[in-house]
């Protein structure tokens, strides 16, 4: 009885695993290709969903795209070629990491530009403050300062 129960449970689990990720059982001869498949499908955005990678989405178009990534990998195409293939059809939207090119220079460059601007502003403020505090001594204070330094030396 217990044996039957256990068998049933295993069968249920197997069925569930199959239902949850129907194409997780793709055949790869080469573990490197399998790794590339995982990385590629994790780095592409499903065009139908707003923020899901195609390896994580149940939408029909994501399934089609996974199939295509798999076929192209089997044909021996490079990662770059496969990304180009998808971008040609679905647009830059499918890449989670926008490419560094003319149109995306602002996107990639702005954080660094802001960093430089921020650093310049901080440096300027520090300089201005330093000068201001040096100038802030009145003639009287200066005299006292001189006196203190002087007295210390003679001691």
């Amino acid at each position: 009885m217990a044996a039957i129960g256990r068998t049933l449970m295993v069968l249920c689990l197997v069925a569930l695993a199959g239902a949850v990720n129907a194409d997780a059982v793709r055949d790869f001869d080469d573990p490197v290709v399998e790794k590339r498949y995982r990385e590629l499908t994790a780095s592409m955005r499903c065009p139908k969903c707003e923020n899901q990678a195609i390896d994580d989405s149940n939408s029909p178009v994501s399934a089609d795209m996974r199939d295509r990534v798999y076929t192209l990998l089997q044909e021996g195409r490079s990662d770059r070629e496969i990304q180009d293939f998808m971008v040609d059809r679905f647009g830059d939207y499918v890449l989670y990491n926008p490419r560094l090119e003319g149109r995306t220079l602002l996107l990639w460059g702005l954080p660094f530009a802001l960093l430089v601007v921020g650093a310049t502003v901080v440096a300027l403020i520090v300089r201005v403050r330093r000068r201001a505090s040096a100038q802030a001594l009145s003639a009287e204070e200066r005299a006292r300062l001189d006196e203190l330094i002087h007295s210390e030396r003679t001691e």
Partner: protein
Amino acid sequence: MKRRLLLLLPLAGFIGLAIFLYMGLSMDPFGRDSALLSEEFPPFELSTLAEPDRRVDESLFEGEVTVVNVWGEWCPTCKQEMPQLLDLADRGIRLIGIDYKDTRDKGREFLDEFGNPFELNIFDPNGDLGFELGVYGAPETFIVDADGVIRYHHTGYIKPEDVRDTILPEVEKWQR
């Protein structure tokens, strides 16, 4: 006085950023342009919905501006969109349908029930042509010019006012 105003600079920056991000909230995520704009219609060879033996290819689009509509029997919005497509056909515009991820029987039933504004329908049961077109749902609508170049792309439902406001002007623009 000038230095005081300078203190408002971070606030101004914050307000600018807030407006920019707020505008992003009301943007339509499906309003982005198709990657195929200004590209030639992708090559294909498929049968028509009506005649399984008749093969058609991209030369269909030579010579006349065509509105290409991707539909399927399984797609409820496509049914709502039909009156607008029939309206376009009544105005003498050439329409070609792509019956996307559908069965022949269901596709034919759909046309019997909701009307057939299409000169012909390309039968794309596996969605291969749809994939080449970057289709990620239905309905989607393309305008192809007389040289077979894709000029306009509309994702989703065509509202009755869209016919007058966007589709017709676009077709006329490329007819010249």
